């Protein structure tokens, strides 16, 4: 499929439809391709599309929109939700974007592969349900499912929400594995407050405030984050105490609540492995429960849950009442 | 245990749960009471007697044995005062003192008749005895 994408990209560059291509470029290791612009057919030799291309390219289109000429971007089905949401927020320019919706079989979590004891990875290929990993120590195998990123085990669908053309995908395709994405949230909810507190303290205390989550998040698209400015006296270079991590993560989750498409990039990039998506999913679950099912990025014109209301909305006291049951 | 009248009034308020200050003295309880004419102290007076701490007169009143617990006073009171509960509390104070029962088992046989339902006896024993 990679070849088909490159070929098509070359055509589009050649016929002037676009002047650059936003895609993934081979990294220094076999499992770390990175987002990159390709400005010429020659540069496309480094283009890669494989199971490690988890990176959601939507957010890069904010910047691309400011550049001269049109940009071709490759979006996986779940990435298109983010792109749509950015259209809704006037952050990207649809008219300057040519979208190729690429098919996706699920993206891989290198940490899971490493945890399975597979080291020195050179390349990876998939055969049926099995993943073949070429390592410097020879070929190793692993069930494909065991290596999927958490978000791909609860895939929200293989249908592209916005595109100009599809490659390796078709409309109305079946979703991948569709586990209950709220299972962990529910597990946490079932815990006692004390246990929940211990859980989050354990997770969030590992935060080093590298801001990777913020930088990768397509919803965190502010020109200047409130945590970098002094509007709230909240500028922080590093954490003074654990509260500030909490504050940062709560506010970050709150700011993206109703806008977060659950793309899972925050958890994917966290160098400390903090399951940050569990904060966002909590908001998503609450929004679904309290205000009706809502999927950010499904459309480009509806009101987000937090800029909307009904007269009959539940009262905040529902939180306490729910606790007693 | 000996209590002053004021303490007794407080106790009546406590076990009845009635706030006597809510009464606006309209008399609708007495106007509704089916046993009014049999009572020496009337339902509305129970409220003001307790409010004023005149408990002795209430303890000696025959009204406490005449109240039917029909709850008409309680239902119709515009101020939600619940005089029936007050009368009940006074009655309880009396029967909780040993020997103050209004009904003795000895007098029951002559009061009985063929059709008298168990419910009546159960009620009467609950209401008249400790």
């Amino acid at each position: 499929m990679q070849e088909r994408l490159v070929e098509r990209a070359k055509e589009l560059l050649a016929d002037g439809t676009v002047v650059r291509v936003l895609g993934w470029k081979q990294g220094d290791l076999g499992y770390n391709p990175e987002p990159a612009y390709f400005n010429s057919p020659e540069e496309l030799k480094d283009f890669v599309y494989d199971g490690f291309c988890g990176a959601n390219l939507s957010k890069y289109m904010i910047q691309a929109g400011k550049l001269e000429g049109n940009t071709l971007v490759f979006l996986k089905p779940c990435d298109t939700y983010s792109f749509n949401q950015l259209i809704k927020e006037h952050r990207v320019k649809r008219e300057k974007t040519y979208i190729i919706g690429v098919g996706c079989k699920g993206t891989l979590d290198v940490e899971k592969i490493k945890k399975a004891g597979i080291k020195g990875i050179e390349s990876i290929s998939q055969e049926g349900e099995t993943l073949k990993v070429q390592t410097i120590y020879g070929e190793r195998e692993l069930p494909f499912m065991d290596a999927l990123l958490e978000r791909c085990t609860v895939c929200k669908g293989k249908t592209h929400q916005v595109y100009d053309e599809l490659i390796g995908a078709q409309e109305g395709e079946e979703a991948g594995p569709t586990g209950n994405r709220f299972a962990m949230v529910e597990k946490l909810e079932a815990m006692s407050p004390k246990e929940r507190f211990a859980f989050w303290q354990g997770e969030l205390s590992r935060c080093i405030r590298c801001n990777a989550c913020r930088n990768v998040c397509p919803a965190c698209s502010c020109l200047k984050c409130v945590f970098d400015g002094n509007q709230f006296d909240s500028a922080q270079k590093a954490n003074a105490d654990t509260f500030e991590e909490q504050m940062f993560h709560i506010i970050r989750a709150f700011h993206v609540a109703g806008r977060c498409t659950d793309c899972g990039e925050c958890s994917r990039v966290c160098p400390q492995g903090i399951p940050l998506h569990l904060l966002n999913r909590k908001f998503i679950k609450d929004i679904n429960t309290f205000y009706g099912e809502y999927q950010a990025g499904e459309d480009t014109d509806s009101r987000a849950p937090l800029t909307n209301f009904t007269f009959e909305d539940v009262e905040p006291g529902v939180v306490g009442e729910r606790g007693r049951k | 245990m000996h209590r002053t009248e004021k303490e007794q009034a407080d106790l009546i308020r406590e076990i009845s749960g009635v706030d006597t200050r809510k009464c606006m003295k309209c008399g609708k309880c007495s106007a509704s009471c089916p046993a009014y004419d049999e009572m020496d102290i009337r339902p509305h007076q129970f409220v003001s007697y307790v409010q004023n701490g005149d408990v002795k007169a209430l303890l000696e009143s025959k009204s406490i044995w005449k109240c039917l617990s029909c709850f008409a006073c309680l239902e119709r009171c515009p101020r939600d005062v619940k005089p029936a509960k007050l009368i009940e509390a006074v009655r309880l104070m009396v029967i909780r003192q040993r020997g103050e029962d209004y009904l003795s088992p000895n007098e029951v046989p002559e009061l009985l008749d063929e059709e008298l339902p168990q419910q009546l006896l159960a009620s009467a024993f609950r209401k008249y005895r400790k």
Partner: protein
Amino acid sequence: MQVEKTQEFRPKIVAFCCNWCSYAGADLAGSSRLSYPADVKIIRVPCSCRVNPMFILRAFQRGADGVILCGCHPGDCHYTTGNYYARRRMTLLFSMLDYLGVENGRTRVEWVSAAEGVKFSATMNEFVAKIHSLGENVRLEDLRCKRD
């Protein structure tokens, strides 16, 4: 755990009140001499929708034991719709705090109209009693900027 209502524990409680209903309700409680504990300190905001979750978290960060937000009753907002947004924001925020293991009960929203001095006072008495029963904000204390 029953926390003794000792002399030492004077909870810090921040009450955000909207200017049009709840702040006026608090004024009415005052002019009607309806007392509630001095632990409650009111911050006037134009509308409940002015209250940013940041303000509430900041209060906890600085050592508050409870935060309450009062606004006009739904439907009666001076700005028509402000309290509806506040209601959603606070519902989600409180749920998140609960999810993080912070006892709910330290946060509350109550709708109090300008005519409800009695309700204002009763609400504050209740809320302070609740904070007393929860005791000092131990779970959030770990998270506070400790100054001493």
